């Protein structure tokens, strides 16, 4: 993709933008999870029903647009909306003291230049890429500056708009949301009716204005918690950035459980976790039964809370993190190839090399774990083997808390630049592709292997302790932030923050807090305990992680699955059995064993009828051997069962296209594009389908231009290869399930 291509795409698309922005393209389908940024007629045509070849074929392209005059941000400000109004929060606090007090401790309140970690990144971006381009950042971080056009100029430390963060009037003013991201919402500028005591109508009008339709939706959060890069942000090619929304919308938390057959869990939206009900001791006017939805927007912002010196907020953040993911030493693979499943009590011989499979599972995070800016996260695994006397025999990752520990497995994504080298300090305009991503999707699992070389003399039993530890940001980014805070500008901002908040200035140089997310200990070389009720689940989690392995390693999921099945009780475990069987099916799919996959899925389906994941796996089993026509029915069933999952529609669109049904293909593709407007696969299918349907040339040209603008860059594989070639450890990290050697005792 070139910069000019993107510009062409935006120019061509421009005519449809206003209609979309004004809400004309709102979907009427109640299965939809977002509104379309597209020309309205096409959106309605594409999304009002499931793909049906009997209907007239779509011959218009659905195009990703940016309706905002504040581009690259997608934010659309109401007429006359100004920064001073947005920044003003005291009038809200007058009646909503609890909400305001909570918000003042939140990352939203420190989302602008008043946050040293953000400031160091945005200041550098503005210097290197340009002030106009920095509107991309401002749409979510600096709305007050943005709407005043102040991002085009220097931002002074004493400018109140630079300290606003994401204020009451931003979230409570959003009257339309689009699925794009990068601030893809509209903020109303209509006056806020002021409620008067005893005047029910004034209260109603106030509530009506302050609780607009998008307010309690996940899609509103997605307006900013989905980001993408492109030519307008200084990047060579389109690239997905931080994106909590997509992970959530494809998950069972959003009701779209096509990822896997899983243990039952409740649906949850952003606010269920990040805005739980909380006591309102200050008498907040919005309180019901003495509680309000928390405006702390709790997340894993432990560094921010620590640098602010807010012990209470830090404790809350740490509490939220604990148990978010689990860790387990699930399987031991012995030198002779035998396995201990689960690993508890695995025999170990002096001098033996044994591989310990550690499994991390995202237990309750509705997006990726860690989430947000996944390139800057710093979650890692520590593993320690001790003998019976407590002497450490080997360890891995235990020095990462002090700096980079080369034995540590770090759960983060690694974007690389032109030279294939990882970028650690959020130089987003240099991001070209992601070399590897060790973060975990909702309910997903990851296997990390450790090689332990047992010493020649052993005092048994040994203990193996695995810990999952969290630090908010990597130390490289912290060092850059700390250095910036010591500059004159940094110090001026610190002083301004202190003055405005009445609290000590945030100190980004403090030692970052580390949170113990999870811990597990097993014994080796002792008695083998009888498997407990959780044993099958541990092995299921291990197998789930192994399904992400290189294709030639996937077979190693099978013994865990067999053992898990064997451990399940004969009765009363239908769901668990369905989980294992479906996962067996997934293994067979990856191995190209279609018939075997179908048999396992038949079994799973009998126990978990009409599950979206089973349809997906059936479809994938068939498409892997190019039985496209047969694949359509299960893929369609899966998409209908998980209608908010854009990937489900993508799979269906490719199947229809491959089966030679372009009319159905474009319909499915446009269903998905409503949810994910810049998906390269669906834009490609749309373009090919319009060609096949002999659509008007203007449409085929527009569709083709959009595909070219947003397709994955062709040189991404080469850049990843450069990382492997040039960066020590990169080739190893790019192997999904790889072996970390443990450090022997010194």
């Amino acid at each position: 993709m070139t910069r000019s291509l993107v510009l062409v795409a935006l120019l061509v698309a421009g005519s449809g933008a206003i209609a979309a922005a004004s809400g004309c393209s709102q979907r009427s389908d109640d299965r939809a999870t977002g509104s379309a940024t597209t020309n309205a007629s096409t959106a309605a045509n594409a999304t009002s029903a499931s793909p049906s070849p009997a209907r007239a074929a779509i011959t218009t392209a659905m195009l990703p647009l940016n309706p905002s005059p504040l581009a690259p941000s997608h934010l659309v400000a109401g007429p006359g909306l100004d920064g001073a109004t947005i920044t003003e929060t005291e009038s809200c606090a007058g009646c909503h003291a609890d909400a305001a007090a909570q918000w003042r401790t939140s990352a939203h309140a420190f989302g602008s230049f008043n946050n040293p970690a953000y400031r160091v990144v945005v200041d550098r971006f503005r210097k290197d890429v340009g002030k106009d381009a920095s509107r991309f950042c401002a749409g979510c971080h600096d709305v007050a500056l943005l709407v005043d056009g102040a991002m085009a100029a220097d931002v002074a430390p004493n400018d109140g708009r630079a300290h606003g963060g994401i204020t009451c009037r931003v979230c409570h003013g959003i009257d339309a949301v689009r699925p794009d991201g990068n601030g893809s919402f509209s903020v109303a500028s209509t006056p806020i009716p002021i409620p008067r005591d005893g005047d029910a109508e004034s209260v109603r009008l106030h509530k009506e204005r302050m609780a607009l339709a998008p307010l309690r939706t996940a899609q509103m959060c997605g307006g900013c918690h989905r980001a993408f890069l492109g030519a307008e942000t200084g990047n060579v090619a389109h690239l997905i950035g931080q994106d909590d929304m997509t992970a959530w919308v494809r998950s069972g938390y959003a009701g779209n459980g096509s990822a896997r057959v899983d243990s039952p869990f409740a649906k949850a939206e952003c606010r269920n976790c990040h805005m739980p009900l909380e006591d309102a001791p200050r008498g907040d006017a919005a309180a019901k039964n003495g509680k309000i939805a928390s405006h702390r927007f709790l997340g894993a912002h432990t560094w921010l809370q620590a640098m602010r010196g807010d012990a209470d907020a830090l404790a809350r953040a740490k509490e939220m993190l604990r148990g978010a993911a689990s860790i387990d030493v699930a399987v031991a693979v012995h030198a002779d190839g035998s396995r201990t499943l689960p690993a508890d009590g695995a025999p170990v011989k002096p001098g033996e090399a044994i591989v310990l499979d550690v499994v991390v599972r995202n237990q309750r995070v509705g997006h990726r774990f860690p989430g947000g800016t996944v390139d800057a996260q710093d979650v890692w695994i520590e593993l320690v083997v001790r003998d019976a006397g407590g002497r450490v025999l080997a360890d891995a990752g235990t020095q990462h808390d002090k700096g980079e520990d080369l034995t540590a497995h770090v759960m983060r994504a690694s974007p690389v630049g032109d030279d294939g080298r990882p970028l650690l300090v959020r130089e987003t305009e240099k991001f070209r592709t992601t070399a590897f991503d060790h973060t975990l999707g909702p309910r997903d699992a990851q296997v990390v292997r450790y090689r332990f070389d047992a010493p020649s003399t052993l005092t048994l039993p040994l203990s193996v302790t695995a810990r999952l530890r969290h630090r908010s940001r990597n130390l490289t980014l912290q060092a850059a932030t700390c250095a910036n805070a010591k500059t004159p500008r940094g110090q001026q901002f610190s002083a301004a923050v202190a003055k405005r908040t009445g609290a000590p200035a945030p100190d980004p140089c403090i030692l970052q807090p580390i949170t113990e997310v999870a811990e597990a200990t097993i014994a080796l070389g002792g008695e083998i305990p009888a498997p407990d009720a959780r044993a099958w689940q541990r092995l299921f989690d291990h197998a789930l992680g192994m399904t992400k392995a290189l294709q030639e390693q996937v077979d190693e999921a099978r013994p865990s699955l067999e053992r898990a099945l064997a451990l399940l009780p004969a009765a009363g475990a239908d769901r668990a059995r369905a989980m294992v069987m479906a996962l067996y099916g997934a293994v067979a799919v990856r191995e190209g064993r279609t018939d075997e996959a179908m048999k396992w899925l038949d079994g799973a389906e009998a126990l978990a009828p009409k599950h979206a994941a089973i349809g997906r796996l059936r479809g994938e089993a068939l498409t892997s051997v190019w039985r496209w026509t047969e694949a359509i029915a299960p893929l369609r069933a899966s998409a209908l069962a998980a209608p908010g999952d854009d990937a489900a529609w993508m799979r269906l669109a490719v199947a229809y296209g491959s089966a030679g049904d372009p009319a159905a293909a474009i319909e499915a593709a446009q269903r998905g594009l409503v949810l994910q407007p810049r998906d390269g696969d669906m834009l490609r299918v749309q373009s090919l389908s319009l060609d096949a349907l002999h659509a008007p040339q203007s449409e085929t040209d527009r569709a083709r231009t959009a595909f070219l603008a947003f397709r994955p860059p062709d040189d991404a594989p080469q850049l990843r290869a450069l990382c492997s070639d040039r960066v020590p450890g990169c080739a190893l990290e790019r192997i999904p399930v790889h072996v970390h050697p443990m450090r022997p005792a010194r």
Partner: protein
Amino acid sequence: MRLKALVAAAAMTTVLAAPGVAEAFCGFYVSGADASLFNDATQVVLMREGTRTVLTMANAYKGPPQDFAMVVPVPVVLQKENVKTLKKEIFGRLDLLTAPRLVEYWEQDPCPPPRPPMRGNWKSGPPPPTAAPAGGARRADAPSVVVEAQFTVGEYEIVILSARDATGLDSWLRTNGYKIPAGAEPHLRPYVQMGMKFFVAKVDAKKVTFDAQGRAALSPLRFHYDAEAFHLPIRLGMINSSGTQDLIVTILAPSQRYEVSNYDNVAIPTNMDVAEGAKGQFGAFYAALFDKTLEKRPGSVVTEYSWQATSCDPCPVEPLSMNELWTLGADVLPSTQANAPPSQGDAPSSPRRWRPPPQSSFVVTRLHARYGKGSAGNDLFFRAAPPITGGREVEGDDGKLENGAKPASSNNFQGRYAVRHPWKGRMACAHPQRGVWGGPPGGEDPKPVAAGDIAFAPRGTLKLDALLKGAVTDTMLAAAGPTPELSFPGAPDPDASAPFPSDTDAGAPSIDAGASIPSTPPKSGCGACTLGEGTGNAGALLAGFMALATAAARRLTKKR
């Protein structure tokens, strides 16, 4: 490729009847003429480490002696530095090294002066490795033009089309004077829908030597890419050969044997004694044995060889040198790349660097599939497999030569067939020692004969029974068992706890029938918390771990 153009071109004629196109391995030939183009046999060499796959293919073309092109869908846009042509000789050597071989043994004097029995080892080990060339850094230019790269090498003019161009594949080919006939579109369409790229190798007919049958062996083409998937897209190549087609896939990987996961695997019956008459027609003999094996286990992929790449016993040719491994892809493996001279900013002795796999660690696996005209088989999916042994002049515990493929701690399996010359001289001792086999009385070791050009071996005329000594054919073929799979001994019967799938589906998949997979999943499992005694097969698994872990261990010594 613009589908509307392809759809418009679609007619009632079938691919098989269509002129101007023929299927080669994982691609197809096109020409400007309304002529039939065929691919008879394909050899593929894969090298694999981590996510890196190096693919080299050698195709045989049969058609009119005029310019044509080979079009191959590839998962990524290949850069110029990703593509090489190799000399045909290396394929010839690899073929000979891994092909089933015929050896001759002479029974040694049953009454000799005492000496240890001779057991193979006719050849000494490989020469010491030569210095390997350093892998160079690759550029990372962004694609921005219609033709990503275009260069001439050997008989090929390579054109790499970016995704932008791939969507116009047919128009590009037509513009360049080639034809995609009607009927090809359904086979190409999914590649386009999935966003695959296309690699076009235009062949200058003047640089190719055609034999009397119009057949030309093309220079091997090598390219590499990274992918978590490891499979071979052979579908296009299966559709339109001139008849039955042989596909020989040789996989080279550090410490790892491979097999297919979506077809049955069978090890060729080996260690058979054959009549001396087989000497002059060994290719035909082996082809008959191979066909008979497939007849017994239809649709299987046959493992013909699995051995350390740098040794052999007996050796039809010298084993592979490090230079040859380099040529076949070791130069671009992560472990060797990471040990290339450091570029600016790298710590020269960074502990994160991988150690290059030792030359001796490479395992060469030879897989052989044969499928019929018009078959619609599936791509080959590969999986790691445990080491096997078999086909050596080694006696088992029962005092008999090992038979079939057995699990082992290292890979030493080959298809080996012997002409034995019993001792005919006088035996002037009280306790003659019979059955000691070695070289001829004259002392000159005859070179083993490799079954080369199996695809073109005469078929249907040779009576296998007449050449097999000591047993009827069916008995011999009983040795053609499945190759040992990655197994986890001590496993409970999965059917005891789960009714799906059952092991009772006996029907083996058939490439010809278009069926896809064996119905029985690999045996695995674990009955107790600690699982059985190792069979040695998972030793390979651990060996793989060790290779990675050893490499990664270097990270421990110094921080980046």
